[in-house]
């Protein structure tokens, strides 16, 4: 909107815009899910960090500039507008860091945050398990208390970035007697620890964006437990809220894609598709305005809460529709692999990961609209 940014906010925006204009690589970096690309993206993180743009909202002492939420969204808008590289550090800075800030000890914060800010340590998330999917509470990987720490066993899957990352984080069942979401503990661990096996998963686009992780008696010291043992579910839920919320998908990304779509249309306008093209632009714009509204509310204090699910459903389905429209516009060119077809295949994972959109709709229905839960285990025909 740029309606009434404060002078400080405007100055912040101008500074970010100028730095990005001068520093964003002219050529796309190779994919971060290849060995070369991973290194190139790590180097880019280092460059961001040197100019203190890698984690703008963090405090100065751990590599940030203490930016406000409004400034953070401004930075994200500028970042995508500039066509800057994807963030190989995103699992760490967007998913894990908020938890370290909230639940980590001073020692953990000092040890983990600065190398995360510089991109020296790249983190992989280890959320899902083969049999659990969206049902996090049915995780089966175990943690057994041993002298001075824990032994992890089991398997995780859909661990993003894990093929090349250094550290992992995730939930393990530390109390086999406790029911479902009780008895889970939150662990951080090196991916090269003895007993960890990383098996990359080839994806639609042929790259290893995800991996399976196998744990065979992996030792983790007590110092690497986040929060209290057995309290992992509550600790993790703050990540889940964050992951689905503002952080991961700032509107700049979709507005930039919608602008590119308008560009494709301008090159070869097909009036029959104009409505779909405009629809994509309108949806990206609505997302931007909605998100700015949320940011304004949060700036006054408040919690994203379940409205994060609204964001997730919206951006992920908008992203698929936008790319489908692009392929329709491209016509026979869409038969051939291109950045648009890659983007299309990538967009398909949006409605699936970070809590499927089915789960998000359950959350919206139950937590915002207050609709009754599905009956479970109740007497015949009675809602449970």
């Amino acid at each position: 909107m740029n309606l009434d940014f404060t002078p400080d906010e405007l100055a912040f925006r101008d500074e970010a815009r100028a730095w990005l204009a001068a520093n964003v690589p002219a050529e796309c970096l190779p994919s971060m899910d290849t060995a070369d690309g991973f290194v190139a993206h790590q180097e880019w993180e280092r460059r961001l960090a040197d100019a203190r743009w890698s984690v703008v909202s963090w405090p100065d002492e751990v590599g940030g500039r203490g930016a406000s939420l409004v400034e953070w969204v401004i930075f994200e808008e500028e970042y995508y507008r500039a066509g800057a590289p994807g963030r190989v550090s995103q699992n760490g800075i967007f998913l894990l860091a908020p938890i370290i800030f909230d639940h980590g000890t001073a020692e953990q914060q000092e040890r983990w945050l600065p190398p995360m800010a510089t991109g020296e340590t790249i983190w992989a998330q280890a959320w899902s398990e083969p049999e659990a999917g969206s049902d996090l509470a049915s995780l089966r990987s175990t943690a057994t208390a041993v002298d001075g720490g824990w032994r992890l066993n089991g398997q995780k899957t859909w661990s993003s970035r894990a093929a090349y990352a250094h550290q992992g984080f995730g939930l393990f069942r530390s109390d086999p007697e406790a029911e479902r979401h009780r008895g889970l503990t939150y662990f951080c661990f090196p991916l090269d620890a003895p007993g960890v096996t990383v098996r990359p998963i080839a994806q639609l686009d042929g790259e290893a964006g995800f991996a399976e992780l196998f744990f065979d008696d992996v030792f983790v010291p007590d110092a690497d437990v986040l929060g209290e043992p057995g309290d992992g579910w509550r600790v993790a839920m703050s990540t889940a809220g964050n992951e689905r919320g503002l952080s991961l998908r700032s509107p700049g990304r979709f507005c930039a894609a919608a602008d590119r779509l308008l560009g494709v249309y301008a090159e070869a306008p097909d009036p029959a598709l104009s409505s779909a093209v405009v629809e994509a632009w309108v949806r990206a714009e609505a997302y931007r305005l909605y998100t700015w509204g949320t940011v304004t509310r949060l700036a006054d204090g408040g919690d994203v809460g379940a409205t994060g699910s609204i964001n997730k459903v919206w951006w992920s389905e908008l992203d698929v529709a936008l790319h489908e429209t692009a392929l329709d516009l491209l016509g026979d060119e869409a038969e051939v692999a291109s950045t648009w077809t890659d983007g299309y295949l990538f967009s398909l994972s949006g409605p699936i990961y970070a809590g499927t959109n089915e789960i998000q709709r359950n959350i919206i229905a139950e937590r915002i609209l207050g609709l009754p839960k599905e009956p479970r285990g109740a007497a015949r025909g009675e809602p449970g």
Partner: protein
Amino acid sequence: MTDLVPTREHTELASAVRNLLDRRSDSRSVRRAIEQPTGFDTDLWSTLCDQIGAAALAIPEEHGGAGFTLAETYVVLEELGRALTPSPLLPSVVTSAALVSAGGQGPLLERIAGGAIATLAWSGVTGPADTAAEVTWSDGALHGSVSPVLCGDVAEILLVPAHHDGGIGLFSVDPTAAGLTRTRVAGLDPTISFAGLTLDGVPAEVIELDAANVLATTHLVGTLSTTALQVGCAQRGLDMTVDYTKQREQFGRPIGSFQALKHRMADLLVGVQMSRAGAWAAVQAHVHGAPNADRLAAAAASYCGESAMAVAAETIQLHGGIAITWEHDAHLVLKRAQALNQLFGLPHQQRAALIF
């Protein structure tokens, strides 16, 4: 960035209007209002004007208005939309926007601010901005016909755009003048009343001879005002449907616990939230004179229209049989959404304004 979220004052204004409408515009009152010869509850309209100053909000203080902006009018309209209240506020807002834009129309504006029913007899009100007027002006009089016109049969102040040799002008007509025929038409939506007008040499006062810009601004204001009604209507449909599905039992459980229905209502909520965010931002952009205000308005209008229609369709479907009875309000949501969908241009026409 505070303008992307309603202020405390906006919230208080909304509460005041809602409290009034809860008392004076419940389901039974709406049905009574529909049956009145004016098509709305004149007492309620007086109260809205006297207590809330509804018609005066966006009119400058020097012309008897409250000197606020379209944002405050938006707040009132969203509440009127939610209550499905039959009301002349929409044509009043559109007409005063035309007069403010044309400038120097103090006396007319003062009457509107005080609650006089005003309307603009222009097919752009029920279509896209580039719709031509079907009326011509020559020798100081108007000739032609235009239909449907919001509150056209009861308006006390009547503006008519008309072609003349030098372009398109804006004129004022005495609603009781000889040569003017006003006929109420049966609308699809009983809560919005229309009339057809024929003008057979009706004497007209010139407001502005070169009114193209005035009409463009007026269309923008009308578009934004309509989004307010659409957001309110959608919210009403959703609330009604969620409440009903929580209570209604089938197969031994509330139907609102069936996942297919929950997901559909979740989608409606997403649509309503996005609508409100987009509409409010577009109104603020207009109020602040932002350069992209007209694009944001068209975007919001296309989205709010479709979202309200989607809610209305599900309101009918999820209520089942009772939705298609006259006694139930579900069909009023549907008819209102459908009628609003046409005002100031259909969604696809709004989208057409957004591409080269």
